[in-house]
């Protein structure tokens, strides 16, 4: 994307309503809610338990179930990203089983 230089004064003048005209009254108060639990599981297969114990700390099954078929190299990169970038506490020894499982359930058919 190239930077777009806009005449700022023009833009602001046309857009933002001064306070005298804006009269929307919003009452802010205490709010308490409850989030639902996921009721979706993962398909059976070798490595499923390893995936459940490692990956579900951060996200529910929907993260995996909605993914398209992706090649093994992509799944390896995803697991690496989850560990290195998002600091998922996954032991080295668990990585191959996770990649194998994801490739089995979400690999090219």
């Amino acid at each position, binding site marked *: 994307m190239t930077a777009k230089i806009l005449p700022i004064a023009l833009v602001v003048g046309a857009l933002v309503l001064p306070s005298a005209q804006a009269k929307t009254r919003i009452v802010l108060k205490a709010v308490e809610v409850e989030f639902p639990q996921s009721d979706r599981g993962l398909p059976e297969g070798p490595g499923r338990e390893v995936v459940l114990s490692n990956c579900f700390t951060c996200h529910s099954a929907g993260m995996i179930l*909605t993914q398209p078929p992706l090649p093994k190299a992509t799944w390896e990169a995803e697991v690496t990203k989850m560990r290195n970038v998002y600091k998922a506490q996954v032991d080295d020894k668990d990585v191959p089983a996770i990649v194998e499982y994801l490739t089995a359930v979400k690999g090219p058919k």
Partner: protein
Amino acid sequence: MEYAMPAALSRRNLLCQAGVAGLAAFAAPSWAQSVVNLPLPGGPDERQITTAFPQKGRMILQRTRAPLLETPFEVFDKGVFTPNDEFFVRWHWSVIPTSIDADTFRLNVRGHVERPLSLTLRNIQALPQIEYAAVNQCSGNSRGFFEPRVPGGEWGNGAMGNALWTGVSLKAVLDRAGIKAGAVQVRFNGLDEPTGKDGPDFIKSLSVDHARDGEVMLAYGMNGERLPLLNGYPLRLVVPGWYATYWIKMLNDIEVLDSPDTNFWMKTAYTIPDTPHADIKPGQTGVTFVPINELNPRSFITNIKAGAKLAAGEPVPVRGIAFGGDTGVKRVDFSSDGGKTWQATHLGADEGKYSFRQWVTRFTPPAKGDYTLMVRCTNDRDEAQPDQPNWNPSGFMRNVIEATPISAV
């Protein structure tokens, strides 16, 4: 070019016609469905409809934790404002407060400022109120249509919405704090936290000039009501014309920086190829990536679905929404022959340059057979939607001209 709205195409009449067209176009009432099909190439295309989330109605369930909820597409046919309880939801980390005490909540303003602030919601609401409509669209809206497919939130076209936002300008707050000379960026943080102690907190930055443009808003109102908690209650940053990644939810911390922000969420995540339409070839190397920024123009048909059967020789209203991106909608053109010829549509009421804008036209299939309906938005900078889809490894900024195949019987 100007497109005056004929009296017969006023908003009220648009809505009346919508009812008729809706009956013709949708064979099954969509409200009765418990699953929805998103026609994503290679699948999976089935998604559950959920009503289990607080302050939310029927939403397409992408992921329960951290929540990813998509707006069912038929919602966009109701008008240009997306109802709060149907507005899409997207969180990165699953540690999200489930309660907010409006009396004890504080917004801190700190860093490279003369006077650090700790503001109550009352303090904020005492500042001059501003209000405008703006589209909030996920960077990865429509990611599921990318080919080849890419990992991530596999959205259809419903990770977007338009609301009337009410709040105070970020500038007013920054002016109270007094930005010191030498400040370069302003960084925003919300109450959500990483799941593990070492994960990168979700924080985003804008340039000082952008932050002080008078438009960027701290919003406490959404369509005239409090924000739903999942949309960022009690306070959300609104960055009109820019992708939703900057619209920090549950905003409670503003830090003025005297050096460029190199945190993961600015430097690595949410970056796009610095190429036209953020478009590269899979595997292309030597590409410079920059932080994602302004929205691009898009338009959609909202009252006729792919595969619809229309009556040959019978006129039918065709209607939808468009947005210009970081500027207004100049025109929306319609094609019924797969893009060979185009005709101007009538634009609905102008709710502001950052808003969805409705468009409407009339189409009469001349004979039985197959047709490909298309709409193309051109914005006020004369930027039009491209006729080829873009591709990048994160699935960002899709805005290809949409094609809706139908048949006349």
